[in-house]
């Protein structure tokens, strides 16, 4: 029985990894040139911002929360940094830390409201979404192109790997974030508290874990990572615009879910989310390789895939709950029988 429990926990992650291998193999068999390592590296380059967002989102979902504001914060970051660099002529060395601070503060405020006022994360971050999107247009209703030499240099810089393959600076940023996140999730007190809160907030509190601080930190961290993803995205597009990454919330949640993190919190792995994004990137690449498919087919496939994983998880979780509740009912009946003797109804009737 013990062994079965562990298997169930790993199951979604194993499915995600196998799916990645399967889709990759399919691409290699089906399309010429798909097997080139550069194709894989391009997925990393094109989706660096999504990887970073998904890593932050993993922590939020692990703590049984949700953050719908990520896409809007990314858009706001691109707009603010573009505006600062282009319109106010502020050097990127000052502009980038400022927008990172801005994102962190937004996360801190949302986390504090969620914790102190006991408001559902969903509604608070939805308000955050609208606030950030609105602020984008307060600053500029038009797209702003970034032509600062520093931005251009970083954006176009290629880091060459053996064999002539290359990655961008964004990929390096993503890898650093990944290493830090893996440490935080699995080796730090913070990570342990996040898992405990997601598993059962009440018992986490009884265990003496700093529930409030951890919850607020999770959203603060996610705000910072969203802003970092925004910086990476502005490097990718070299511009800022308020309608950028509209609906990225779903992509981020989809990546996390496909990666095997339970939406009910407490179960999941940061590395799973990386595989989730990789699978989405692979599907996108296959749609491009196919050439005849419309680009929004990616969304529909990703949507269906998400659904598939949510349903698997739903089955796993409800199976667990059902067994628990049945056991509990049986237990209570046994207790009643012990207390009341052979015929429990007799006493109940007498009571009423």
């Amino acid at each position, binding site marked *: 029985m013990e062994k079965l429990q562990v298997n169930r926990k790993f199951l979604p992650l194993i499915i995600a990894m196998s799916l990645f291998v399967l889709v990759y193999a399919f691409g290699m068999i089906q399309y010429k040139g798909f097997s080139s390592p550069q194709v894989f590296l391009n997925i990393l380059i094109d989706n660096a911002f999504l990887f970073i967002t998904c890593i932050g989102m993993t922590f939020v979902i692990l703590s049984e929360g949700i953050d719908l504001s990520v896409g809007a914060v990314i858009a706001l970051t691109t707009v603010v940094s573009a505006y600062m660099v282009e319109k106010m002529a502020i050097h990127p060395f000052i502009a980038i830390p400022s927008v990172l601070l801005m994102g962190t503060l937004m996360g801190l405020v949302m986390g504090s409201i969620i914790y102190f006022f006991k408001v559902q994360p969903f509604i*608070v971050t939805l308000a955050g979404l*609208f606030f950030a999107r609105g602020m984008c247009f307060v600053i500029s209703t038009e797209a702003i192109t970034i032509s600062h030499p520093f931005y251009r240099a970083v954006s176009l810089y290629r880091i060459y790997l053996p064999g002539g393959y290359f990655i961008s600076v964004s990929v390096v940023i993503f890898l650093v974030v990944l290493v830090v996140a893996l440490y935080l999730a699995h080796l730090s007190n913070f990570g342990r508290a996040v898992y405990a809160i997601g598993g059962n907030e009440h018992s986490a509190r009884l265990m003496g874990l700093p529930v409030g601080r951890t919850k607020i930190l999770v959203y603060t961290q996610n705000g910072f990572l969203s802003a970092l993803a925004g910086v990476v995205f502005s490097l990718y597009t070299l511009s800022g615009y308020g309608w950028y990454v509209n609906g990225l919330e779903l992509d981020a949640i989809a990546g996390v879910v496909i990666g095997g993190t339970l939406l009910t919190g407490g179960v999941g792995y940061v590395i799973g989310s990386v595989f989730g994004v990789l699978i989405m990137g692979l599907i996108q690449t296959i749609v491009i390789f196919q050439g005849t498919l419309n680009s929004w087919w990616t969304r529909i496939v990703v949507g269906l895939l998400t659904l598939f994983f949510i349903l698997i998880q739903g089955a796993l979780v409800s199976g667990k709950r059902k067994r628990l509740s049945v056991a509990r009912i049986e237990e209570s009946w046994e207790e009643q029988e012990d207390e009341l003797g052979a015929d429990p109804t007799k006493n109940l009737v007498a009571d009423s």
Partner: protein
Amino acid sequence: MVDSTSMWTRIRSHHLFWPLMALALIMLFNLIFTPGFFKLEIKDGHLFGSLIDILNRGAPLMLLAIGMTMVIATAGVDLSVGAVIAICAAVAARLIGNETGITATPLILVILISLGVAILCGIWNGLLVSRGNIQPMVATLVLMVAGRGIAQLITDGQILTIYYEPYYFIGGGYLFGLPFSLYIVAGVFLFAWLLSKRTAIGLFVESVGTNDSSSFYSGISEKNIKLFVYVFCALCAGIAGLVISSNIKSADANNAGLLAELDAILAVVIGGTLMSGGRFYLGGSVIGAIIVQSMTTTIYALGVPAEVAYVVKALVVLVVVLLYSEMVKVAMDRIFTRKETQT
């Protein structure tokens, strides 16, 4: 003295008190800052003026709010209403078809098929939530994004203009001097109100929202109730889609009903229905919708860019949500009870 205090307490504790106060505040603001806001005139036998304009433009939002109230009452939420508006408008525009001003499909069929598609969307959401055991937010998020893709599939990625004149009546017509869309709202509201007050469904919905497993054990089929509220919500969104597309005489897969979800949720929350489910107030939601629309109209009247309205709405959501939160409620109760014992 004692009598007047208890009367005041009774008025204050009525669920429509705060929404009506907020509405009065906005109206007061407009009375001072927006000249001609309360002017009503009759042109060609139709009533015109800012107030009628708010009601007319607010009609789709009122419809959404009525549907959303039921969903939120079951402790759920439907984020896909905007996408359903887009799908429904796209279907209607496609069915009407050609640019000659004649419809390719009889109007009654256009309406029935479009609403049928909306109901299908609702069934999809409802099944995911009730049978798939998926959190409502995530389940409806799938359709929220995929829905725009579907709408684009229907319109071939273009904005379809509608040339069929009789269709304009739904969102732009007048009946007995008032916009026709208001009669639609009144009809849907009456239906929802009768359903919740004159049948047991209202009670079931509140019961499911308070505690779905105990409802199940007391013999309510909570799965079907949940399915029903999502279908009803999607149907309301579908009707709103018809009203909107008829009003702007086109179907835009990308922008029709964009971010309508927040407005609808905002209206419901302002109306006094809690996001955590349970008691729901249809009348409150309609007043909430009028408040949201008055806010939007006021912001436009002040000459502020349309997108900035999002910031204002976000702040209002926050204030309202904080007002309803436990911490503030306890503090408020303490302040008011102290004052009342002093008098």
